[in-house]
């Protein structure tokens, strides 16, 4: 439905204003362009998002969940773009109402489809406004408890959002996350999951897994038994007490062989999918993307072609070349995510030193207790030199000490931390930097010699 000419003229004015604000903030180098122009729209006219979204007749995908939003959304956008459509996306981190509003305001005129990552807390407002054709829900992990509350609450938010699209769009959800899968049970979700090769011996955890959410049945609270497991509490589970069980999903990605930072082979829907990014978490992201694309009529074969060209985004296994040295930037958000990255780093033979950066600004989570739930021990067992960085570098050093290791440097300053890590890496090897959100921004700033790009992406929390 096309809006009436006066409304269109009005929207045109808002768009011009938003572009103006973006231009002005770029000129002023304040880096606040995304949230500022979005905020202007949010305050002036909340109906703007609904009207702009309705013009994307190719359909909209909304991606939410604790981990993997940015990469999954980027993968879906890459797949839809390969079909020739102009696709609007929101910048990483700009995933509240205002961030989406800003993206819609400044979208190119030829855009036909939209892919937006949306913060769990913003779903209730954005899903009705965007009316997505597919809602992709990745997982629920404990993340920033000081801000989000408990995982059960977040699962409830995702379930509510899923019920909002029921009838008008498809729900695509991670079948391997018991809490999430149970929360969307009455929305006929399209499931996806991951199967892994057997674990290398140095990674065998032994004892309870501390980065997982409690393995309890989401229906009755009984203990869950796993038929297969991947990351933390993710896997195929069933409850002996009440008979609840996760089904076999239509999109099950089988990880083949070892992955590296920038390559991974999957077998998915009888198609070989080679992705230009590694790590188990990215196997989930790829499976989610292929499942989401299927709701747009894109075959797994076509999706696989698009994913082959896919490379990492902003701080998510991003490769930086710093004066001839290679630094892999790995965004670490919570214990489960950190443990997966550790597995990836330990398996990656190119890595000669590790930089562990933890900060405690709002966007990182102010309580850093979680670093004790992440499994950093394999880094120590592999004998990698470790540099502690970030505002809470000293806490990282204590964590490493009790993991049985010793940091080669404790350096809150990002530039000096990076230099220490490069100095500790034997020549010809790479540095792997695991960093929380604002630490990642600081590190990119230090590595690239400019903070402008990084600041533009600051998550509006």
């Amino acid at each position, binding site marked *: 439905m096309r809006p009436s000419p006066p409304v269109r003229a009005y929207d045109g004015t808002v768009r011009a204003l938003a572009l103006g604000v973006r231009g002005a903030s770029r000129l002023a180098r304040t880096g606040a362009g995304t949230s500022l122009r979005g905020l202007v729209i949010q305050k002036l006219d909340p109906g703007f998002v609904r009207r702009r979204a309705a013009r994307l007749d190719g359909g909209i995908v909304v991606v939410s969940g604790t981990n993997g939003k940015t990469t999954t959304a980027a993968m879906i956008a890459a797949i839809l773009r390969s079909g020739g459509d102009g696709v609007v996306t929101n910048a990483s981190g700009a995933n509240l109402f205002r961030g989406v509003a800003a993206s819609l305001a400044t979208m190119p005129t030829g855009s036909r489809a939209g892919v937006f990552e949306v913060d769990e807390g913003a779903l209730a407002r954005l899903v009705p406004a965007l009316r997505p054709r597919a809602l992709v829900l990745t997982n629920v992990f404990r993340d920033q408890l000081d801000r989000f509350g408990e995982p059960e609450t977040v699962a409830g938010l995702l379930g509510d959002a899923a019920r909002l699209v029921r009838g008008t769009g498809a729900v695509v959800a991670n079948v391997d996350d018991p809490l999430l899968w149970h929360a969307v049970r009455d929305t006929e979700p399209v499931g996806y999951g991951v199967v892994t090769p057997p674990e290398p011996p140095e990674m065998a955890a032994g004892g309870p897994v501390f980065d997982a959410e*409690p393995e*309890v049945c989401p229906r009755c609270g009984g203990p869950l038994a796993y038929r297969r497991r991947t990351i933390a509490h993710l896997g195929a589970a069933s409850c002996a007490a009440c008979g609840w069980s996760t089904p076999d999903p239509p999109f099950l990605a089988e990880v083949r062989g070892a992955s590296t930072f920038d390559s991974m082979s999957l077998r998915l829907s009888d198609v070989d999918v080679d992705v230009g990014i590694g790590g188990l978490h990215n196997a989930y992201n790829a499976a989610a993307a292929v499942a989401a694309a299927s709701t747009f009529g894109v075959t797994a074969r076509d999706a696989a072609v698009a994913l082959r060209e896919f490379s990492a985004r902003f701080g998510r296994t991003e490769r930086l070349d710093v004066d001839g040295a290679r630094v892999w930037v790995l965004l670490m958000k919570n214990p489960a995510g950190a443990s997966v990255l550790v597995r990836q780093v330990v398996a990656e033979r190119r890595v000669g030193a590790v930089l562990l950066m933890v900060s405690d600004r709002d966007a990182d989570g102010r309580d850093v207790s*979680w670093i004790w739930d992440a499994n950093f021990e394999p880094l120590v067992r592999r004998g990698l030199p470790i540099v502690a960085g970030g505002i809470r570098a*000293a806490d990282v050093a204590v964590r490493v000490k009790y993991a049985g290791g010793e940091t080669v440097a404790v350096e809150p300053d990002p530039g000096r931390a990076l230099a220490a890590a490069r100095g500790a890496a034997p020549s010809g090897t790479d540095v792997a930097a695991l960093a929380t959100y604002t630490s990642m921004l600081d590190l990119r700033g230090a590595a690239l010699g400019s903070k402008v790009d990084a600041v533009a992406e600051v998550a509006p929390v």
Partner: protein
Amino acid sequence: MSANGADLVVVHLYPRLLRTYGDRGNVLTLARRAEWRGFQVRLVDVEVGEPLPPDAGLVVLGGGTDRVQEIIGADLASRRAELGGAAARGAVILGICGGYQFLGRRYVTLEGRSIEGLGLLDVETVARARRIIGRVNKAHAALWGREFDLVGFENHGGRTSLGPQATPLARVPRGGGNDGRDGTEGAVQGTILGTYLHGPVVPVNPAFADAVLERALAPATGGAPLAPLEDGAERRAHDEALRRPPESAPRRRRLLAVAAVLALLLALAGRAAATEIDEDGALGTRVAVCATNPTEVLLHRTVRTVHDRTVHHGGYVGWSIRSSASAASHCSSI
């Protein structure tokens, strides 16, 4: 030495279920610090339905989400005699956050339902919707004849009050701690300890760790003081936390800045209105009072709110806006 050759049996109670805030770090740190001093340590994980080892010398009970705390409720209730017996033999029992609340007499939920606790600590907790969240670095603790500073992070909805048999673990500035009002944090009763501090609390507070260990190891050492350890990393983390300003959330600073700008604008508007009306003559004084009043109210409340560190993120914004709105309506009614 106990029968199986360990000097200290450390029990992590419900490690699969109560582990929300790095609780494993507390257990790991206590075990390592005993081992580094040459003691034999046996670490035992006890889950729902499993018995507590009879020679447990140190039991750590962490925090969990509300749902999980409900799941373990029945099992925990059945352990009253077991845990009470361990404490009577001199075992140290350390409850953190949710675990602290469990150790108390009862917990009253938001809905007003009363849940009976273990009754090992003479404390009671009442849930409140507004959580106490923030860094803690001005806590001064007194424990078994030692005094030291504690640092950490707290995040709890419960307000805990101490009965006559329990003494506070630490003194904190008003706004944080047990109930946000009385300036106390945690509780001690014999060898039973409770605290709201995450961090986790043990690794970044080596003095606290060693006080707990010395007491738990007393059966093996006869109460002799523990040898000092090389604590450079721990002390650095502790000292850096101590030196930080109590609350530095950028969001609050941003809001304060916005509030200040708004207040300034209001003040300018108020002055302009006053001038205009002064020129009109008649109602001058009265309206000028009305126009500047909200500004003062807003400024005053903003400053007060920032000092009051218990205020929840969301609550803060709402409050400032409400206070300015109510001031405005007061104004228009004049």
